[in-house]
């Protein structure tokens, strides 16, 4: 019982940490982008201010908005919180981790996405359905690539549970795994596509015709919008955390050694900051491509992931 309480507490601590840190992560990425583009930037805490403002406003709903439109932001947020509790960020002793492995994690993201697409179609505007079909298109092409990315560490560790993967990868002797490097490249490409970043989508765009993610949420306002924005930030953070867990898992706590948690938290913040900087650099040096280049982009991601898997089988590395 005590064991369960411990793992439950560690779970709670990690989930709450990720959910609360997520806007900061988004703020950091935006700030880095601003610096790279010679702007001064709004400051790290801007996402929190935006969320606070949005929560205060009155929600505006279109006349024909149905229950799906109102439920979708909550479901999206719930899915992302769930995803945040599956991915180990500080330690691997998670009460919830047996309930879902990496495939279920893909399922959680899919659930959130389907609801956001349905909600976008609910009001029945031209942009909403345009966004919905683009979002579903990009997602359906990135999912196979994502699965192949997971496949390489899964082959090395022989487990599809993220906690076991982290445990095993963090404790082996240091070795160069070219297969993991390939998987990492593929993962970054999928991350860019799934989180609506440049070059697949532009999170800061103001031109409706090029939108994907923004087109989905055009009709949302106030607390609904706040929840969606927050969920987006959590999603980005969770994706970075998955990348860290798969490709740089060092520094996490084994079991529930509470004294080690601050150190693990420090390592996490540093790793997330590095990931954010990398993301900002990638976004600054690349240009958004047109939507029908996206299949080729994701096809390349798929290819990298498959190559990683093949190299793992060919070379055992």
């Amino acid at each position, binding site marked *: 019982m005590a064991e369960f309480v411990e793992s439950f507490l560690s779970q709670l601590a990690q989930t709450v940490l990720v959910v609360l840190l997520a806007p900061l992560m988004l703020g950091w990425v935006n700030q880095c982008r601003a610096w790279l583009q010679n702007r001064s930037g709004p400051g790290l805490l801007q996402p929190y201010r935006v969320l606070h403002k949005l929560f205060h406003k009155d929600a505006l709903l*279109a006349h024909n908005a149905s229950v799906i439109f109102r439920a979708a932001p909550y479901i999206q947020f*719930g899915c992302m919180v*769930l995803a945040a509790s599956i991915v180990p960020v500080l330690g691997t002793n998670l009460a919830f981790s047996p309930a879902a492995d990496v495939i279920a994690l893909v399922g959680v993201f899919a659930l959130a996405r389907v609801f956001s697409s349905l909600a976008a179609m*609910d009001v029945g505007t031209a942009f909403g359905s345009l966004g919905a079909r683009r979002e579903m298109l990009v997602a359906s092409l990135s*999912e196979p690539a994502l699965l192949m990315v997971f496949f390489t560490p899964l082959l090395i560790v022989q487990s599809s549970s993220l906690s076991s993967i982290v445990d095993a990868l963090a404790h082996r002797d240091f070795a160069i795994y070219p297969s993991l490097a390939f998987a990492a490249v593929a993962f970054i490409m999928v991350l860019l596509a799934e989180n609506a970043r440049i070059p697949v989508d532009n999170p800061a765009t103001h031109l409706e015709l090029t939108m994907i993610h923004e087109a989905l949420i*055009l009709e949302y306002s106030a607390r609904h919008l706040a929840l969606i924005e927050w969920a987006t930030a959590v999603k980005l953070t969770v994706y970075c955390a998955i990348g860290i867990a798969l490709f740089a898992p060092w520094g996490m706590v084994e079991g529930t050694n509470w004294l080690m948690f601050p150190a693990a938290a420090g390592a996490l913040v540093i790793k997330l900051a590095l990931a954010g900087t990398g993301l900002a650099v990638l976004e600054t040096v690349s240009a958004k491509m047109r939507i029908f280049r996206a299949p080729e982009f994701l096809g390349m991601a798929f290819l990298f992931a498959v190559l990683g898997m093949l190299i793992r089988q060919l070379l055992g590395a």
Partner: protein
Amino acid sequence: MLPAAVPPLELIVGVVSYWMVIGLAGLLRPLSLYFVSRVLFPLGILGGMVLILAALQGVASQPADLVLPLGLPDLPFHIRLDPLAAVFVGLLGIAAVGISFFSAGYFRRVQGSPPGLLCLQYHLFLAAMTVVLLADDAYLFMVAWETMAITSYFLVTSNHKVPEIRSAGFLYLLIAHVGAIAILLCFGVLQGGQGNYTFAAMRQIELSAFWGSAAFALALFGFGAKAGLLPLHVWLPEAHPAAPSPISALMSGVMLKTAIYGILRVTFDLLQVQLWWWGVLALVLGLLTALFGVMFAAVQTDMKRLLAYSSIENIGVIVAGIGLTIIFHVYQQPHLAALSLVATLYHCLNHACFKSLLFMVTGSVLHSTHQRSLGKLGGLIRNMPWVAMTALIGSLAIAGLPPLNGFVSEWLLLQAFLFSPGIANPYLNMLVPVAAAALVLAAALSAYVMVKFYGVIFLGQYREPSLAEARDEGPWARAGLVWLSAWCVLLGILPATVIRLLDNVTQPLVDFAIGSNLERTGWLLIAPISPERSSYGPLLFLLGITGTVLLTYFLVRRFYHGRERRVAAWDCGFPAQNARMQDTAEGFGQPIKQIFEPFFRIRRQMPGPFDARPTYSATTEDRLWYWLYLPVARLNERLAAWIGILQHGRIYLYLLYSFVTLLGLLMFML
């Protein structure tokens, strides 16, 4: 429980006769819609309920045999209930209850055939499918198989005044019979020259590799024709839209599964030795079918055609699962073979639930709007909340989203794919995981298709003004919809229980049961290989999401507020937007059409720059129709024309033919 006293096999035979009696009772007052839909169809529900109970009992007990004193002299009917048959009987029961509920509220006076006749055909169809599952000799199997084909043909063509429906029915009958011939030949091979057509005798025979392969190929062809496997799928998208919706539901949900049952029966039960390339064949065909089905589903504009193509996709997934099972079984990986077989059977159950549900939904939509084209629907969630909510469950389930049932089978199958390395064949070792990607692509695209299906029908604005008058379903149809959606949820959140039942099937067929791992994790989690490798707990999952959603809701209300105002849609400040500016069904499918263009045969008519009344039309067709079917049809016609030379219409010539034949035979024989 009532039936506990009666053995399950007798119980099922009882249900079959009960359904036949109900069907015949329909002829008592064939024109009375009230009698048929308020008395006979509800009575039929009972049969389905009993079937479920009998199946639950039968799946856990030893195989039982029975010889019925029916049929030809010296050729009695043999029937047998083993766990494999019991699973499919249970599936039939679940679907039959839901569809009978729905049918009780569905049939209206406008259809072609009189209601009494429909009732007879419907219940005969149900009884024939049950007998197919029970048959233990080739005669009874073929009799039941043909009865099933013919009753379903009459049901498809019940509205036979419409020429398109007649031609769809003809295509269906044609392919069903080409398939039936292959099945007949398959049994001929299986009896191995002994002349004993009982399945018990066939199990004793060890066929050589060549004849075994021939039997497998014939079974895959024959049953594949019924299931809609590539390239024999063409009848599905024609027959489903033609049939009344409950019949489509029954055909897609259950009848396709009898074909899957046939493949499993022949491959794992009647054939004693399998070869690895059968598995590869089934895997490749299955994945191609799945991808083909989902791509075509994405570009359809008729809601029932869309679902028909989605059925093709699901059948592809199931056949791929069978192929994987064969591969693992041949390469002595009983663990993974059992896992993929469980996944396959699970997907059969799931598909029976959600596809029947969605076909019933299209029936409701069709009735209340008289529209089948997606381009003329929209916004129905406001008028038909019951239908819309059950449709939402069905769509999410079919899209393979957790925590519903579609995800469970997908998850299990992916586990089998992902832990495949270890097969003794290095080529397969590397290609099987890549095949998993094809499966994921199909699953992801099916989410695309379902967003299109649900979004275009139920969400957005009314695309036609008349839709505002659409009304929700009555209590009978609601009960049917709720029944099947409840099963979608149940199968989704209680997989451990279901898997333990399915273990009874895998144990005799592939000599392994994955349930032993479940003991360690309890009923909350499923861990098909071991808890360290992977586990999934749908109930925790559901609780997690619901808990977070409720907590978020209350926190938002507690710390902020719940104020809201209703305003006109914003749409980026565009004031003149109307319902016609939403995506049409074609528009929603357009990206798929563009990316996978080589797979489609697309014909576009573009307006010229100076057209006064510009029109645009685009049709998307199946390339296989032109590559395969039309050449075969042409060849057939040429042969027929050639034989037609013999036809002169003069009696004495025909007599001359008979005379020459007789003479020839006499000379040849004596």
